[in-house]
């Protein structure tokens, strides 16, 4: 964990009154931010029927995994989790691959129409996918992709903003690194794979993790394009069945915990890359 601490580790902190006030404020705000999640967690371990008993208590009469067991047995949570994981992994791989190749093409190769093509891609940054839901859905019906994995994946993989970020990065990679390999007889494809891609690992990891998070959490598009419960993603499935539990608050919260946990684990593992990813995707537009 020490790598996650700021650079000033080791420096002695002076506890001036100002710093004490800041620390108190930060702790208070941290508690406010954690409380709803803590409450969800506490509720999920209560015995059935106790979540709505007033006055409310943090703990139920006893600690139980009943809600988790019932949710797992009642719903398709395992199936939805597999769907979400499969869709997120495929989308991430394809997005990183297609966008990196395109960015390399725009940054490093010459062909007629390159500038015009790049302008068309850049213009796409302004198009929010949400405004295309009607025509995109009609297209999916015609292509027969409704209720398929590809129907969810394909519209998410060509991200113009990501090409823009990667073009900026590739523009900064010195050409000499590649020229040496060309002189040695390597082809362009080989240079791309063995020199450029490994060099870009940090930025690729950042955009990859960010793509993974947003795909995992995407609601609107999977919600539109899946109608069959077996093909739903976790967020869509949960919302779809919210009433069929008979309004059991403990079970609702157990499923919320199950659905929220995987990304919290991803965050704990990849904190640095995620932080960098947010900074990249958010600020590269400057």
């Amino acid at each position: 964990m020490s790598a996650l601490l700021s650079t000033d580790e080791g420096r002695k902190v002076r506890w001036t009154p100002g710093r004490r006030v800041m620390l108190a404020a930060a702790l208070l705000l941290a508690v406010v931010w954690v409380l709803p999640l803590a409450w969800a967690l506490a509720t999920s371990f209560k015995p059935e029927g106790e979540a709505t008993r007033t006055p409310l208590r943090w703990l139920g009469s006893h600690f139980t995994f009943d809600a988790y067991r019932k949710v797992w047995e009642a719903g398709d949570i395992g199936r939805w989790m597999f769907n979400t994981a499969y869709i997120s992994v495929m989308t991430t791989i394809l997005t990183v691959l297609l966008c990196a190749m395109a960015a390399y093409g725009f940054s490093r190769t010459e062909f007629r129409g390159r500038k015009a093509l790049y302008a068309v891609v850049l213009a796409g940054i302004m198009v929010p996918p949400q405004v295309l839901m009607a025509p995109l859905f009609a297209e999916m019906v015609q292509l027969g992709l409704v209720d398929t994995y590809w129907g969810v994946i394909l519209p998410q993989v060509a991200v113009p903003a990501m090409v823009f970020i990667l073009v900026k990065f590739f523009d900064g990679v010195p050409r000499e690194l590649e020229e040496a390999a060309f002189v040695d007889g390597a082809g362009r494809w080989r240079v791309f794979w063995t020199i450029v891609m490994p060099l870009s690992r940090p930025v690729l990891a950042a955009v990859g993790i960010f793509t993974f998070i947003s795909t995992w959490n995407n609601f609107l598009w999977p919600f539109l394009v899946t109608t069959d419960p077996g093909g739903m993603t976790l967020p869509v499935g949960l919302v779809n069945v919210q009433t069929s539990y008979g309004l059991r608050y403990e079970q609702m919260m157990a499923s919320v915990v199950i659905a929220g946990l995987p990304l919290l684990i991803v965050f704990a593992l990849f904190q640095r890359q995620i932080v960098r990813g947010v900074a990249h995707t958010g600020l590269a537009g400057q």
Partner: protein
Amino acid sequence: MVPVPAEQPTQKPVTVRRRWTEHGLVFIAPFFLTYALFLLWPLVSGIGMSLRSDNITGEGGEFVGFDNYTEAFRDPHVWSSLGNTIWFTVLSTVPLVVTGLVLALLSHHLRFVQWLWRLSWFAPFLLPSGVIGLLFLWVIFPSDFGFADQLLAWFGLHPGIGWLTDERYAMLSIVAATVWWTVGFNFLLYLAALQSIPRHLYEAAELDGAGAWQRLRHVTLPLLKRTTGVVLVLQILASLKIFDQVYIMTGGGPDDSTRPILQYVYQSGFTGYRIGYASAVSYLFFALIVIVSLVQLRFSRRSGESA
């Protein structure tokens, strides 16, 4: 990164120069085909759809010209849902930007258990909107036994507020949930910006006798101007696209008072089966987003010149 001169007058053998130029399209083709199929084509075909009276499969309609657009302009639901969207954007943007900045300043200046601040403030952003919606719908905002009412009860109040069912509070509750959920993103953007401010600027200010407050006002905040611009635009564009939380928490109610424009598009196209009309409404909304982006572009160019 090392700056690379654009045109190097190289005396390299012809074969090397040729290698720079070949295969270009091969690299771009996979992306561009997907892009054309799933962004450019729906963008164009949507215009065609908006001129027809098509049902959900895009069949059986007829050409109606601009009828869908004139109808949309006269449809009170378009105006009310557009109004709700803008109202949500106005209400949510300021607290999201200000809170993000405050959280970043706190965690940056404390230089202490950074991971704890990051975890507590950014973690909600990682949760799917479905999870957020259900959490607030079933556990935080129910009247009487919800966590929000309980919190007030601990302070001796027992209001029984209809957080999501009372027209006076529903939009505010959605804003509160959204701030809690998404502020982590702005927090990280500000944190990254703060960390890139060179330390010697502060040391110089301190030598000139500037106190903590003056350093904040005259060093930190001016240097964060660009970041604030970026955060503001990203936030406005994100808030305009609100759909998930509202759909899950209130379904647009009570009495359509929280229904955003995207939900109206969804309802006309997917539950009302009028996909031609839904497309027309989307394009009006798209026009709004383009206007916002262009205004921002204008604005950021001007502030860039003065900086």
